[in-house]
């Protein structure tokens, strides 16, 4: 298995993709301001895989919404490729803990949904349906759902549904993938299997990934860098670079280098439960 070390190094010289500069965000609900983020600064380079961990309610989901342009920051700036984010970002793909597939559509049709919405595919969709379907089949093949394209979601297991959801997030070839605890609802075996699937997708696509997770092993397995946040209002309090060679296998998770790193992050977090 060839190591991709040199490629890892090249990421550190890639231009910045996502930048949050001194970002604060307050929600206003039932007459009170809730400070979700305060003075958060985070830079992610193109092609980097960053995992974000932190206590519940510290603003992780909020960060992803800021990056996707679904929320404007109260203070500070959010930039993508150097441009300030104004409004929804269509070069962002999203997947969540809940796969939210549409039950009246087959797996394939669910994957195709973004193409029916997003420009320029929306215009081209009708006339190029075959070609788009081919792309969707390709993605489904990559995540190991070869024969399930025509199945409705309720005939798929939770893990399979989550694979479909990942394909849907990637079908329009977004530059950035934001994942909000995508494997949290799965059993341990399925979850670890999907780590491999996500890694394969990332190695193929090389998009920039922001992964929110409560599982430090998952973070270390998948990411180039693990960011740990403080309690609300959230700030970055710790960062660990993961320079383990790729592709990483589940066996690697038992090796000292991996275990030590997980342990180091875990110890740092200390009393803060992640």
């Amino acid at each position, binding site marked *: 298995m060839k190591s991709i070390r040199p490629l890892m190094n090249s990421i550190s010289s890639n231009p910045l993709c996502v930048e949050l500069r001194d970002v604060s965000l307050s929600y206003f609900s039932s007459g009170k301001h809730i400070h979700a983020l305060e003075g958060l600064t985070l830079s992610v380079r193109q092609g980097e895989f960053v995992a974000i961990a932190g206590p519940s309610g510290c603003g992780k989901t909020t960060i992803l919404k800021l990056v996707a342009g*679904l929320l404007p920051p109260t203070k500070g700036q959010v930039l993508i490729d150097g441009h300030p984010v104004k409004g929804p*970002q269509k070069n962002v793909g999203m997947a969540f803990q809940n796969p939210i597939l549409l039950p009246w559509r087959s797996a394939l049709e669910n994957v195709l949904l973004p193409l029916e*919405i997003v420009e320029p595919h929306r215009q081209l969709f009708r006339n190029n349906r075959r070609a788009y379907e081919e792309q969707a089949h390709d993605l489904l093949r990559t995540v190991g759902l070869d024969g399930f394209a025509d199945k409705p979601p309720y005939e798929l297991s939770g893990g399979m549904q989550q694979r479909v959801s990942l394909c849907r*997030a990637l079908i329009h070839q977004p530059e950035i993938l934001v994942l909000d605890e995508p494997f949290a609802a799965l059993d341990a075996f399925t979850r670890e299997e999907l780590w491999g699937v996500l890694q394969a997708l990332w190695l193929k696509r090389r998009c920039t990934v922001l992964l929110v997770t409560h599982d430090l092993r998952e973070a270390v397995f998948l990411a180039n860098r693990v960011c740990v946040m403080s309690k609300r209002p959230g700030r970055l309090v710790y960062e660990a670079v993961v320079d383990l060679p790729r592709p990483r296998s589940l066996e690697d998770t038992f090796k000292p280098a991996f275990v030590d790193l997980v342990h180091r992050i875990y110890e740092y977090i200390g009393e803060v439960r992640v």
Partner: protein
Amino acid sequence: MSEETQKRLRSVIPPLVTILLFFIVWEAGCAIFKVDDFVLPKPSVAFQAYLQWQHAIWPNALQTLFTTLVGFGLAIVSGVALGALIGYSTLLYQALYPLLIGFNSVPKAALVPVFVIWFGIGTIPAILIAFLIAFFPIAVNVATGVATVEPEMRDVLRSLGASQFDLFRKIGFPRAMPYFFASLKVAVTLSFVGSVIAELGASNRGIGNMMVIASSRFEVPLVFAGLLVVAAMGIALYAVFALLERRMVGWAYRSSQ
């Protein structure tokens, strides 16, 4: 016999048995307590009345079916339109909902004399009552379906640049279909009840009218024959729309299993 047919047969047997039992108890009760046919005719007597009068019953029954379906058709068209609107726009929802509740709280039977004043005795009051009674459940159900979009799905589509109308077309509307078809089977029986009620006082045709005439002539068995026909037609209408529901939105059943 295939497994499918066997399964279907097995699902028809329990309701048939209960209906049969109901008639046996009724028949036996009347016989044991010597209830006069003039007060409560035995089902066998009602059935004889039905056989004797069926040529008079069926044109009236079909008339009622016709008013029901016209009123119900109008209710579907306008219920879906209004439901989609108030499900789609929070503002319209807030603006119209109290008014709708108000309208729906008025007993429809109380409107019959009003409609008679406006439109005279005839088919129109019955159609209007059938319409009004079914309109509300259809509109509310469609609105609920349209308005239920998971926040995450909204986020995904919004980030892709989806308009409010895209959300409606791709998510809200298909999601509303199971609610819509579920409301149809209930609403159609309500509509039917509405027509019959209207015919009792405001029509010179229809099965409701026939029962009024029969009771004024003290032909109680014929009244009951009419009631039995009404009940049978209600079951048939419900069954038709339940079947349609299975056909159209089977995914909703299978995905919730």
